[in-house]
């Protein structure tokens, strides 16, 4: 099947305006007759729930956390992009669009990305109106900083906690609607199934994580804003509870999963310290504005950093990419770090490179660096016990973000009508690699300014309140979820969920990580399938389903990773080219740069679930570029 993205025709700059003009509206008196389920309360979920409720719809909001203020958007440090051109440095909507398409290695939809760039400016206005305390200069105007993959300063920030401040802005707007009675919150509740009635998404089945009760909720439309899936790699910068479960269960009910192989590995994370490691911590990309990345030139040079003279250091990003230097995009910087370490030049455990602030401290003074990055330096010290003002940080790439996700059209609607997918959970805007400070922008664009319009268009064509959670589809769904819970508890094997997660993570990192090959991917598919079989025969989940049971929660997510990991590897195997975060060793230039194959792979790979143990079916959405020239991405 060739998928239709439903992108409007006409000139790029007018597409969204024209489309909005054509979208149907729901009249104010009718809005209160509709109920919309929103799963997830991060930036995308929080902002869409608040906005839909402000418009008058009834919203049922679900999150697995104890409060809707804790979605993992909160951990984003660096900032949010917008094409305001406040710095008069040549920025524009077109330039932000261009940088994002290019940064994504020409694997995103033009129309979506242009809309994102247009809306970026409204987001900053909205957040300021909410009281988000962005950094200001002495005249009281907003400040900007530069970020990877861009040569202009367009990133707005609130110290090193931009994600937190934007999320609290959305959470506050959300809370106002809870008070107004328009949002009902269901914290500590995990979505475990999507309910489809006559081919349309009409509800979800959830588990109350405190009482263990399995419940069904019906609605006129379902919004998934459940985040990304990179915890399939076990170690990542995601929160412990971030998972693929909501998206995967929707996929198993018919929603296509697009480009799962596009995963982002962030170059500046704190290296692994041992087998006990439970997660990895990101050091904001903004550090690359002032820090210089280097490794010793000589293999096995174990001297402390300050004893290695200048001419025996290799500032490899500055050397290889003189025009972007340390601000090269994430995929490029990550691969370069891996190459240096593979060549035996790594520092610390051998899996690390230096991020050095000595020059910046000499140029600007320690106080200026403290003012910019103090909280990050403190965090680094707490975790490693080292003082980055005195010695360089050690950093290494880690899994960070999922560009892939559930397939959506221009309306952010899945192939299943009534199912809308927002934020990191969808695949839409970042192509094969996301630029820094663009995730916050996308989550809020989807939630505040896109989905509220496009959902109305869907609702206007449906009769409100038609579906009841007492129907057959709901009963079957609840029985299925109950069955899965009981099955997990009944295995009573000898290995813990964490042991399985570590093993899966190892397979994913080694075979489906930063350098993928046909052989490694084929091996991964075999290994994952074998591990999945072992899981269902040998996992141990103590306790009962009728109680707060964290091992059971983890086991359910693990079962999904063991299926999803295989799809990710299959997608990587299918995409026989290198692009952005997806690097196939068969396709590289002599100096190790990615080589795309636009003739064969300029498409979105959307996978349809094939059934238990069956091969998934591939559908393609061709990508066409009318406003931007396909080029070899160069940051030299």
């Amino acid at each position: 099947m060739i998928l239709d993205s439903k992108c409007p025709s006409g000139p790029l700059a007018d597409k969204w305006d024209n489309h909005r003009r054509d979208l149907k509206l729901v009249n104010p008196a009718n809005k209160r007759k509709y109920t919309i389920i929103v799963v997830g309360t991060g930036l995308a979920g929080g902002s869409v729930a608040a906005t839909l409720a402000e418009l008058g719809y009834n919203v049922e909001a679900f999150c697995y956390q104890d409060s809707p203020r804790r979605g993992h958007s909160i951990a984003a440090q660096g900032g949010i992009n917008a094409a305001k051109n406040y710095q008069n440095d040549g920025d524009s909507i077109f330039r932000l669009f261009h940088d994002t398409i290019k940064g994504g290695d020409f694997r995103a939809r033009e129309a979506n990305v242009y809309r994102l760039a247009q809306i970026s400016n409204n987001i900053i206005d909205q957040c300021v109106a909410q009281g988000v305390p962005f950094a200001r200069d002495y005249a009281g105007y907003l400040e900007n900083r530069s970020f990877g993959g861009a040569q202009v300063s367009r990133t707005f920030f609130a110290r090193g906690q931009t994600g937190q401040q934007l999320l609290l802005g959305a959470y506050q707007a959300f809370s106002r609607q809870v008070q107004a009675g328009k949002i009902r919150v269901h914290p500590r509740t995990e979505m475990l199934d999507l309910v489809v009635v006559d081919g349309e998404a009409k509800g979800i089945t959830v588990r109350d994580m405190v009482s263990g009760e399995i419940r069904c909720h019906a609605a006129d439309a379902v919004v998934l804003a459940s985040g990304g899936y990179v915890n399939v790699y076990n170690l990542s910068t995601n929160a412990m509870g971030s998972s693929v479960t909501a998206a995967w269960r929707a996929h198993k009910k018919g929603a296509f999963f697009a480009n799962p192989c596009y995963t982002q590995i962030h170059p500046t994370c704190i290296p692994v310290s041992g087998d006990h490691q439970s997660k990895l911590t990101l050091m904001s990309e903004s550090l690359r504005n002032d820090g210089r990345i280097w490794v010793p030139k000589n293999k096995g040079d174990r001297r402390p950093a300050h004893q290695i003279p200048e001419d025996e250091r290799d500032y490899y990003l500055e050397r290889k990419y003189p025009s972007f230097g340390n601000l090269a995009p994430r995929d490029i910087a990550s691969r370069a770090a891996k190459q240096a370490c593979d060549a035996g030049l790594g520092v610390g455990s051998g899996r690390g490179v230096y991020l050095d602030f000595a020059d910046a401290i000499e140029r600007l003074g320690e106080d200026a660096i403290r003012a910019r990055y103090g909280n990050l330096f403190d965090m680094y010290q707490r975790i490693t016990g080292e003082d980055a003002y005195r010695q360089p940080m050690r950093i290494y790439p880690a899994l960070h973000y999922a560009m892939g996700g559930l397939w959506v059209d221009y309306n952010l609607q899945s192939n299943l009508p009534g199912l809308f997918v927002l934020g990191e959970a969808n695949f839409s805007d970042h192509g094969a690699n996301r630029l820094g400070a663009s995730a916050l922008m996308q989550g809020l664009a989807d939630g505040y300014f896109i989905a509220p319009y496009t959902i109305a268009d869907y609702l206007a064509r449906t009769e409100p309140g038609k579906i009841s959670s007492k129907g057959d589809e709901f009963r079957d769904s609840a029985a299925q979820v109950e069955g899965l819970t009981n099955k997990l508890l009944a295995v009573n094997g000898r290995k813990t969920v964490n042991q399985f997660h570590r093993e899966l993570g190892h397979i994913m990192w080694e075979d489906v990580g930063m350098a993928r090959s046909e052989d490694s991917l084929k091996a991964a598919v075999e290994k994952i399938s074998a591990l999945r079989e072992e899981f269902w025969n040998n996992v141990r989940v103590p306790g009962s389903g009728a109680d707060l049971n964290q091992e059971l929660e983890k086991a359910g997510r693990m079962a999904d990773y063991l299926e999803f990991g295989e799809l990710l590897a299959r997608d990587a195997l299918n995409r026989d080219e290198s692009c952005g975060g997806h690097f196939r060793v068969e396709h590289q230039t002599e100096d190790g740069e990615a080589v795309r194959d636009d003739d064969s792979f300029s498409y979105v790979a959307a996978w349809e679930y094939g059934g238990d143990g069956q091969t998934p079916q591939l559908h393609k959405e061709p990508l066409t570029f009318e406003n931007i020239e396909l080029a070899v991405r160069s940051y030299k």
Partner: protein
Amino acid sequence: MNLTLHVWRQQGPDDKGRLERYQAKDVSPDMSFLEMLDEVNEELVQEGREPIVFDHDCREGICGTCSQVINGQPHGPQAETTVCQLHMRQFKDGDEIYIEPWRARAFPVIKDLIVDRTAMDRIVEAGGYVSVSTGGVPDANAILIPKADADAAMDAAECIGCGACVAACPNGSAMLFVSAKVGQLAKLPQGRPEAARRVCSMTETMLDEGFGNCSNHYECEAACPKGISVKFIAMLNREYLKAMPKLKGKKEA
């Protein structure tokens, strides 16, 4: 290193609960405190026993989920550090460690180390926002904010809503939490129009939810992982006094 843990186990809100003893063996100084507990739990699961449940999520000190009282101190011994960021190099071989949940009237225990903090959400729902809907707002630079005010607002806005301030307070007061939101929005021009209504409504909801009042112990500031200053409580009180004549004590204005 090897450690002896005394961990609060409580099956549910109606259970009385008790401290139970566990051994943590071969603990690496590079482990985080929660990774140490993960290892203890792995052993419990292997033995077929129920692991210790505790709240945690981002494990990088920002989501505000983790919540343990360690040797009597919310978030443990290291200043301005959440439990998830506390590392085992802060402890030494042979240490005995007492681990308990947040204890406050407004935070009932759900199980083991997990408490119900939804009362804090209800305080925010009562007015911890600017009542602006999506769309129709002016250009971001149309609202000028002096740097000092923006910085002070950010100092308050750093609150992660963990509730350590409540757990540390002998009165179980949420004044630091409330003052952080009231203070942030009071410092910004966007927040001024509703300042009076906000401070009254949030403070009264705090009392209705069973939190105590402030009697200047400053334990909250000492426990706060983000170092929020008690000067915001002073600001909260000033805002409250300014609001009283306008509202005559009513929540609705």
